[in-house]
């Protein structure tokens, strides 16, 4: 009996230690989507609330689970026919009321957090961004600056951001774990969410609502930078696409029209390049990743993408265009210049 209780205690301790180890480990940079490494007030509020509920739940678990095990061990194989008790009304009423009270206590910070995350603090400045979820990438529009980009959201540090979420196809869900919990992106609706980043850095986001074949690959990055860097970035994005700087790139520039890329992609400055089926490529050369975050934008990766977009991201809406290797290197050179 003693040894059994001892073993139980060891078990409980081991559970606690592994939890603590997990939470500690989850804060390191190699957990880019950890919800225990909040970098902004919205995520922080959600994390604090979670930790509170978690501790409450853990206490309840240890008490009830411990009591359960204790009961089983204590009354195991007791001799004789036990007394046939049928219940104890007072005890049961008490045991009904206690959890109700615990829940009422928990409800208070819950409701307050709920209203906190609903809207940015009133009276503070807010920057608006329009987010459009598409099968299977993201478009970001800055209405005040008149700038549109894809898959890489830039925001200034310390500023309240209000994102208005829309979709033209199916339901997606916009989620940047370190900055804010998710809000669904729903056709026929424009949902709002707000967040703020406290530190400069790059944060990962991912579509959280199942949206079809390439759902697993519908990711994005949020680049949080100083106001000055952000302003410079916006100014650059507002410019039309850069002119090709080499002969090879010039050929790529011509191919973009000749091979019909412009039917699906927007490139400001090229006549007719107003397609919206794919991401905006005007400044694709300024981004660190392509294909909604899944490939680093190296020349090799861009070439591989053009060779067969279905290889890296099965099911996405860019078909294999059967480009020749010459064309591919020309296009890679051109796209690389679109800083």
């Amino acid at each position: 009996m003693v040894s059994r209780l001892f073993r139980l205690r060891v078990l409980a301790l081991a559970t606690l230690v592994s939890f603590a180890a997990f939470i500690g480990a989850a804060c390191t940079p190699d957990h880019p989507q950890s919800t225990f490494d909040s970098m902004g007030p919205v995520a922080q509020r959600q994390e604090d609330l979670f930790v509170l509920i978690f501790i409450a739940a853990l206490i309840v678990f240890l008490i009830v689970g411990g009591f359960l095990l204790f009961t089983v061990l204590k009354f195991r194989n007791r001799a004789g026919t036990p007394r046939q008790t049928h219940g104890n009304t007072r005890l049961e009423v008490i045991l009904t009321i206690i959890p109700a009270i615990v829940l009422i206590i928990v409800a208070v910070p819950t409701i307050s957090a709920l209203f906190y995350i609903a809207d940015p603090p009133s009276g503070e400045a807010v920057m608006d961004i329009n987010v459009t979820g598409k099968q299977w990438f993201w478009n970001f529009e800055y209405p005040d600056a008149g700038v549109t980009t894809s898959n890489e959201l830039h925001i200034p540090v310390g500023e309240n951001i209000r994102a208005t979420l829309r979709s033209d196809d199916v339901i997606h869900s916009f989620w940047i774990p370190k900055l804010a919990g998710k809000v669904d992106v729903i056709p026929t609706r424009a949902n709002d969410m707000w967040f703020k980043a406290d530190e400069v850095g790059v944060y990962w986001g991912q579509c959280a609502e199942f949206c079809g074949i390439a759902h697993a690959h519908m990711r994005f990055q949020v680049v949080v930078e100083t106001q000055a860097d952000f302003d410079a970035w916006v100014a650059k994005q507002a410019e039309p696409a850069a002119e090709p700087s080499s002969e090879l790139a010039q050929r790529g520039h011509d191919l973009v029209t000749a091979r019909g890329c412009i039917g699906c992609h927007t490139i400001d400055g090229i006549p007719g390049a107003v397609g919206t089926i794919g991401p905006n490529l005007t400044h694709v050369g300024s981004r660190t990743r392509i294909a909604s975050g899944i490939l680093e934008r190296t020349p090799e990766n861009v070439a591989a993408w053009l060779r067969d977009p279905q290889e890296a991201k099965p099911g996405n809406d860019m078909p294999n265009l059967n480009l020749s290797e010459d064309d591919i290197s020309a296009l890679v050179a051109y796209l690389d210049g679109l800083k």
Partner: protein
Amino acid sequence: MATIASALSRPTSLNGVWSWITTVDHKRIGILYGVTAFIFFLIGGLEAMLMRLQLARPEQSLVGPDEFNQLFTMHGTTMIFLAIMPLSAAFFNYLVPLMIGARDVAFPRLNAFSYWVFLAGGIMLNLSWLGGAPNSGWFGYAPLTSSAFSVGNGVDWWVLSLQVLGIASLASAFNFIVTILNMRAPGMSLFRMPVFIWMTLITAFLLIFAFPVITVALVELMFDRNFGTNFFVASAGGDPILWQHLFWIFGHPEVYILILPAMGIVSEILPTFSRKPLFGYPFIVFSGIVIGFMGWAVWSHHMFTVGLGPIANAAFTITTMAIAVPTGVKIFNWIGTMWGGSIQLKTPMLFAIGFLFLFIIGGLSGVMHSISPSDAQQQDTYFVVAHLHYVLFGGSIMGILGGIYYWFPKFSGRLMSEGLGKAHFWATFIGMNAAFFPMHFLGMDGMPRRIFTYESGMGWDLWNFVSSVGAIFLGISMLLFVYNAVRSWRKGELAGDDPWDARTLEWSMPSPPPIHNFDEIPIVRGRDAWWHQKRRRAVTAPVAGGSGESDGAHESIHLPSPSYMPLLAAIGISLAAYGVVLSYYLTAFGMFMTVASLYGWYMEPITASSEDEKH
């Protein structure tokens, strides 16, 4: 049409395949339900193991994205509609008449009909693998299910088979409500019913209120896909959120449809192996009823991130937190049942205790989900996957497995091996925790659900690997159970009438029970009727509140005769459903066949006279 009834002579054989196909005996139908559902359970388990293999390491390509989407859609749909619900139905069928002291259910042929329709629906859903299984998730969110985004017939098969399965569920729910309300033995008032019967009754009521909602939603989806309507087609002004409301108004009560039967089973096992009555019977019953009502007021907790606004989210947060109270009441009373008892750790009891332990974890993670602001981080992550498996595997399946070990001696006449049973319990318990506990970590670490692969460097590698090993282990542990069940059924130790010294009426008769159940309808003077009868307590409580017929003098017992009609009607219904995809002529034929068999059903007497048999 009248010829149908007379053209087929009434089946008479009591042995062999045909006797099973035409049976209307609730015990045989129960066994059919159980075996069929268990096979579907194994199929669903295989689907899960394939997914876990794919996710064991980052960036694997064992299965591609589309196959993966089909796998999780089929896994969810199969486990809910083809495994847990019909496994519960197996217990309802086998046990309800035995436990309330009746000779059969109220509508024996309708009962057979439910089974055949269920089987037809299950086959239909699984045949869809041939041409591409449904791949939009078991929740089928619009507009991904619309014909623009889901080409092919996968979603159609999903819609149609769920409709077919809905018919089976509704028919059996009505049957059990009528049986329980009208056929209880003399003296068995409602508050003398075993808790399992109460949970069956509540489940049946939930079914008849929940299924019409999903039926309407599915009809609308079928019209959108086949006849050009736009209920959910966002691009044409339809409302995808309407689907979510309809789906979850069904879907949340469905959660209780899945768990209440297991709670009923556990409420029978715990008293037997504690050798004590259930603690706080009225509290357990009332909390079940309260859950049954409150289950209708929480559906939007599945929609916390939809953008319903803070007021709606606050309301559903509070109702969802509140539903934890009656659930907690049950847990306290189950522990109270064991307290002061003499606990026999036989296999069924191990599963019941395992149920309690795992259900506490699942319940608590459920409360964590109800906190909508922080749930925005867990929604649609592996944290939810962990939670739902603690409730549905740790809860429903553990309860059901315990129930099988518990009643196996009754329906087979033989005991299952205790040694293998205990090994199975520990393997399942360990495998289940290894498979599902790490998913909490994955969710908190930002891993979304329903992704077919992930990059390494997300911090997800370790726990995914552990989870996959656990899942494979869990799958293999089920083989122990199958081996034990098959072997024990054929040459297990003979059980006798009452191997566990149990408390309820089904243990008062031989194992397996005779076809007419009770030689003499028992007279009930209190809860745990059989326990008191055995101890020959001088119970003076009045015999009041039964609702069935007692047989007074010993007349000969008339049992309903076997019939072809339920099977024919079920085939007709499934043909009509196949026709929606294949050809409307087939639909017309199927409908005709259904109507004709129902007419034949109506014309044939419940109990064939000896003249009929001479044809």
